[in-house]
């Protein structure tokens, strides 16, 4: 196996970081909708910033 040049290694890292970021950006809105659907609606309407866990779990919406 040929040894990778510095440029190649840099590209590999940058590539992986980019793809991870892309995956997060894709995944979060979907996760957000899922969490919002099982959270208390008044809380979701007021919430600022990132929603990471369901708040006041309820399946009323369903």
């Amino acid at each position, binding site marked *: 196996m040929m040894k990778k040049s510095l440029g190649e290694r840099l590209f590999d890292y940058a590539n992986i970081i980019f793809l991870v970021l892309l995956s997060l950006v894709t995944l979060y*809105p979907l996760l957000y909708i899922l969490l919002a659907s099982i959270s208390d609606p008044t809380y979701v309407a007021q919430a600022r910033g990132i929603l990471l866990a369901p708040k006041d779990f309820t399946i009323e919406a369903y």
Partner: protein
Amino acid sequence: MYHIKRGEDMAKLEKEVLALSIKQKRSFGDRVINFKKDVVQDFKRNKVIYLMLSPVILYYIIFQYGPMYGLQIAFKDYSPVLGFHGSPWVGFEHFKEFFNSFYFGRLLKNTILLSLYSLIFAFPAGIILALLLNEVKGRIFKQTVQTVTYMPHFVSLVVIVGILFDFTARDGLINDMFVFLFGIEPIAFMRESEWFRTLYIGSDIWQNIGWSSIIFLAAMSTIDPSLYDAAKMDGAGRFKQMIHITLPGIMPTVIILLILLIGKFMTVGDEKILLMYNPTIYETADVIGTYVYRKGILESDFSYSAAVGLFKAVIAFTLLVIENGIARKLGDTKLW
């Protein structure tokens, strides 16, 4: 010796071909009869295949060609009471009205700009993602990224636009982030006409990048690995390999997809715009499709909206023919 023999063979072959072509120059009547015979014979031979084809043909007749009968209302002053036949002809009256109307320039500009932007930004996005994924060595990582990025494709458009509204609201995540990072005033993205195109194209890329990269990845997997080995032997780095092997390898796929995309050039995502827009951003958001919907369905101006729709279809068809012609001239890749 061999040479000469080959030459003689070739001459013989040419003569035969010439004789055959003369024989085939039959009269037109002969050819029609022959054609009929051929069709009947072919039908007898492949009964089952024709039977299997029939639902497709029926679909096209009933749902694609049948409704074209109603297109005549574009040239009539249609009223549902009088029906298709009873309504009086008005010629190109509706077309004239549309071309002279205030909306004509705006609609055309919005439609073309949205299509052009999605051609420039959204179409290459899938190719770039496929190229990047192709460079990843870890199988599991690659498949995870692929699965995650094509997930939004299966989410309903209504939900996607709902997410968009939530995230771009004045107190939404994107505004919070912008305010925190750049210290600017919150922007009401969905109510500013200059942001509409960015949001439309951006969310389109977000939703479809993974899905469109699949087909390019599939095209890449058919490239002969020995080409890469040969390139490595010649001292090509990974970037060079990408430019000289991967990209030419997927070019036929790219061109076919491009032709198909241009066939839909005048049909930008009307449903999505209907979900996203409001009267304050008609300036940039209103396209031919949504205008037809508002005029035809909401205001019941059937003839006028049929004329506008027909105008759109004619342009789309012309574009497709031109583009296919160009692709034909440039290379072997073409639709027909």
